[in-house]
């Protein structure tokens, strides 16, 4: 990894350089005051240090993605996605990309999008909702903007910096502290045992009693990756399948043939979400995928807070 001090006009020049080969998106604050990742024409549109409501996840794992179209008895995947660059990605969202990269490691369509996505990270200016876990290794990025410095993390990043060589002043050592200023409480020790010991329904059902089941927390989460697949016949008469975001708060999420529902209450659904975020599923068991961005806390219309669940587990007795 190389680091350089940059000249004042580095960022607009970087944007111009990227626009030659990529569709460039970045955080833009709309008239409704919501920050979104949107196409960037001018650097001045870029809303620095603003967390977009939906993270870069939407380009890697789109809310509605064509998986195949049938053609003469074969199942044809869609054409490759275009080259895309996302600028101004805070480190929490970069760590989330690292997690998704591993969840979808064997998924060719995800990997195709991933290899066509260039990431320009940025040092986070945390909001009051943030609670980042401590980090000792850098997240994945091609370039990372740290105030007046830029780091390169990949050969693609190196190449860009070569092209922008006249905008670089001098090489610097990379001494960046990857742990965010807004450090949250560490995960309690013995989390697995605490989880098993706190299976008692009262806490979860109390929260479930407040929960509206809207699923906003999962919708804005940069690491939530539940999905459903829907098939239909398109206007041209071909069978198509789309992958769409699903949500573990929706009533039919764990419904099986015969009518049995494995998560019959909102309390059970909230507990399931916390288990996924904090303890992990399957091969990821033991790894928290919560990056501490705080989006779920901000999005919840009834102020349910994942930190409440963490406090409950921390304070609960373990055998």
């Amino acid at each position: 990894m190389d680091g350089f001090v940059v000249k004042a006009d580095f960022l607009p020049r970087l944007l111009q350089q990227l626009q030659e080969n990529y569709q460039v998106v970045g955080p833009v604050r709309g008239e409704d005051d919501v920050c979104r990742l949107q196409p960037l024409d001018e650097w001045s549109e870029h809303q620095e240090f603003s967390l977009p409501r939906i993270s870069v996840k939407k380009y890697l794992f789109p809310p509605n993605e064509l998986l195949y179209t049938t053609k003469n008895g074969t199942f044809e995947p869609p054409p490759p996605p275009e080259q895309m660059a996302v600028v101004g990605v805070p480190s929490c969202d970069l760590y989330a990309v690292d997690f998704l990269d591993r969840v979808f490691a064997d998924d060719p369509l995800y990997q195709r999008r991933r290899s066509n996505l260039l990431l320009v990270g940025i040092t986070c200016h945390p909001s009051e909702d943030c609670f980042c876990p401590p980090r000792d290794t850098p997240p994945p990025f091609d370039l990372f903007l740290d105030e007046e410095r830029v780091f390169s993390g990949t050969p693609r990043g190196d190449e860009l910096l070569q092209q922008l060589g006249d905008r670089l002043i001098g090489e610097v050592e990379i001494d960046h502290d990857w742990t965010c200023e807004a450090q949250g409480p560490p995960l309690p020790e013995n989390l697995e045992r605490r989880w098993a010991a706190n299976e008692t329904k009262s806490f979860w059902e109390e929260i479930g009693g407040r929960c509206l089941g809207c699923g906003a927390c999962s919708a804005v989460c940069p690491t939530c990756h539940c999905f459903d697949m829907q098939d239909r016949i398109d206007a041209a008469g071909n069978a198509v399948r789309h992958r769409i975001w699903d949500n573990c708060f929706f009533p039919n999420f764990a419904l099986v043939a015969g009518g049995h529902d494995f998560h019959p209450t909102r309390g059970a659904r909230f507990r399931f979400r916390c288990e996924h975020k904090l303890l992990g599923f399957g091969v990821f068991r033991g790894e928290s995928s919560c990056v501490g961005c705080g989006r779920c806390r901000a999005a919840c219309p009834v102020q349910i807070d994942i930190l409440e669940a963490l406090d409950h587990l921390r304070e609960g007795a373990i055998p």
Partner: protein
Amino acid sequence: MSASLVPIPATLVRILPEDPENRLFELQTTTPFHVGPGQFVELTVPGSGEFPVSTAGETATGFATCIRQSGRVTAAMFQLDEGMIVGLRGPFGNGFDLTRFAGRDVLLIAGGLGIAPLRGLLHALLEERERYGRIVLLYGARQPENILFREEFEELAANGTVELRFSVDFAPQLGEGDGYICSVGLVTELLQGLQLAPDATTAAVCGPPSLYGCVLEQLASTGIDPDRIFATLERRMKCGTGQCCHCVCAGVTICRDGPVFCLTELRSMPGAI
């Protein structure tokens, strides 16, 4: 396993009605596609949808799967004719580990459509029949006409390859030729008088949730090692690759870590059965 969500084409080479509700579909692919016993695939009816289904055994040209018409997509599947194309993804899941059965007596307990994956296991065992001791098949169905693969099983019983006992929930009257129907009642009643050697037996169970609730611990109470009592679980497996989270139970992805689990594992998975 391919984790791709894009299916490959498979031809329905044969469709055999098994009973009024169930049909056996034999599939063939242009490239070799091996599904081990206890594994499952995702079948696509183009334009209608996809559903997970286990293998009911290999065929000369591929594998077979037994499907009950129970929803929108399986209804569309029942509209298809021989020679038509469906989509196929997989194979998924761990399947049965045959080394856990080798050199031992085998007890297979099926309820209803749960016979389909156990037929796949039985076929795999019969490939090398000499590697196993007794093979006992206990199979409970609703009524005599709902007993799937009845002729096939009775033939295997008649020539001494397997020991066979059927039970049915209801039987207006049992007639001549119903000799293998040993009880009217629960399949667990068939366990009585089997004279198993528990420390030499490996068991595999497949059926509705109510079957697991009673039979697994009952087998353990007879002395069979809980590491050698296997069950295969049914969940809403959408992707098959551990990504979509629909089938997760107790933190375990049933589609990828399972669907076959031993009783020791199931005991540490609250809510699994």
